[in-house]
């Protein structure tokens, strides 16, 4: 058992190294016209543009995510509490969630203009759905008796939300926020790739035109690391929040 655990931990630690090695070997086999080596890619990141792009992409993703989180939580809880409107709108939100939303980006461009505004708005639109849908479903599953306790104590709406609904949906909500952040980041990058003057998405498309392989690989590696780290942190938080003590809350 312990031997197996050790194997698993070593294996998990080895995966990034294996990927790095695969990258190195493919770069050597394919040549630097097609694939930049990890060393070249890393060296290419040492420029001013890198931090400008990092800042631009993360700013848009972060602002978009905050709006998506607040709006998604509010709409989701409201729909979860009003059974009728929840039923009316649930299939609509699920449909919008699963369409190729990126084709709607030009509309965001015309409404919010070229630049930060459209990226934030589209990132928000891209990321809000898992937050909204998960908040709605979790709110529906709040223990009815807990809501009755709140009413028997004549709690206000705010108190009921803070003391009963929020603690009940909190573990699920964190899942929603994690998925929402990933999709917001993806939305921002897609927007930047289509039409922008700043950010990693823009730099990527520029790099194709200039055939700047080290830059391209450097950006992709950076994005993968950022996405992985943020997701791992949120996942850890989520697992801590739904520990064994809270097992009953899930019911």
């Amino acid at each position, binding site marked *: 058992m312990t031997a197996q655990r050790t194997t698993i931990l070593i294996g998990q630690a080895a995966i990034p190294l294996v990927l790095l090695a695969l990258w190195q070997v493919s770069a050597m086999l394919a040549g630097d016209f097609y694939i930049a080596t990890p060393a070249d890619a890393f060296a290419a990141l040492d420029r001013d543009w890198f931090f400008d792009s990092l800042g631009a992409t993360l700013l848009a993703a972060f602002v978009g995510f905050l709006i998506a989180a607040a709006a998604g939580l509010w709409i989701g809880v409201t729909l979860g509490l009003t059974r009728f409107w929840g039923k009316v709108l649930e299939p*609509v939100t699920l449909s919008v969630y699963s369409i190729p939303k990126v*084709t709607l980006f030009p509309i965001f461009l015309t409404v919010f203009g070229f630049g930060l505004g459209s990226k934030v708005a589209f990132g928000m639109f891209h990321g809000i759905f898992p937050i909204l849908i998960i908040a709605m479903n979790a709110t529906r599953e709040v223990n009815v008796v807990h809501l009755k306790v709140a009413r028997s104590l004549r709690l206000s709406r705010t108190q009921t939300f803070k003391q009963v609904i929020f603690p009940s949906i909190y573990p699920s909500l964190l899942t929603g926020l994690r998925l929402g952040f990933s999709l917001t980041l993806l939305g921002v990058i897609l927007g930047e790739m289509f039409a922008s003057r700043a950010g990693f998405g823009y730099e990527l498309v520029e790099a194709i035109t200039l055939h700047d392989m080290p830059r391209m690989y450097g950006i992709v590696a950076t994005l993968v690391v950022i996405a992985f780290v943020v997701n791992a942190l949120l996942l850890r938080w989520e697992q801590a929040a739904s520990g064994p003590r809270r097992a009953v809350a899930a019911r």
Partner: protein
Amino acid sequence: MSEARRVRATRWGLVLAFLALIEIIPRLGLVNPIALVPLSEMVWQLWLLLKDGTLADHILRTLTSIVAAGALAVVTGLPLGVALWRLETTRRILQPYLTTYYAIPIFAFYPLFIAIFGLGSMPVIIIAWAWAVVAIVLQTVIGLDAVPPVLVKVGRSLRLSSWRMFTRIYFPAATPHIFTGFKLAASYTVIGVIASEFIQAEKGVGFFVGFSYNNFAIQNMYAAILLILVFAVALNSGLLALERKLYGRQG
């Protein structure tokens, strides 16, 4: 009127009201006419584009890519899922990476594949496949894990061979989950193909949207967006209905 009917009537009412708004707002001149065209003009333009064959090549390219990527995802995802289910240690090593997979903005890899394979169907199919295949892998593992132990005991009591155990017990018991994987993969494939085309391509309906936007052909752009949305919503609803029909009674 029963509640279910009231819910449906309200939902359709809202959808129709939304469509009516798209028709009326531009007609009343409430928005810039180059920002939004009335719905009827979108439909009419789509009809013209379909009739004169402008879209035929793009539709053919997009559908081919979707079918190719989808088929590839099924053909590779199922065996990978079964293998991962059997290889306990490998699976536990990969677990944290698989849960993080969808956090990675996979479209950032698109330029890398363009650099290797050139602008064409190949990079589009690879991205769409990569976006879809993991959903099938994960759902296959979940489905095989969720097979009730009592069914396995039934198989053992009949002394079934391992092949028969798999084909007669495990696989059929897991199909509802695997179908969910197919359904997710279908919508991910569509998103993968159209989003890639939209970012950069030389053909395809997604490309046509971006191309029309960049050339101020707003009517063409909306016509193509309409086509994409109708296709995606129809595909998702169709698969959802099929799932209900096939597995609805299995709960």
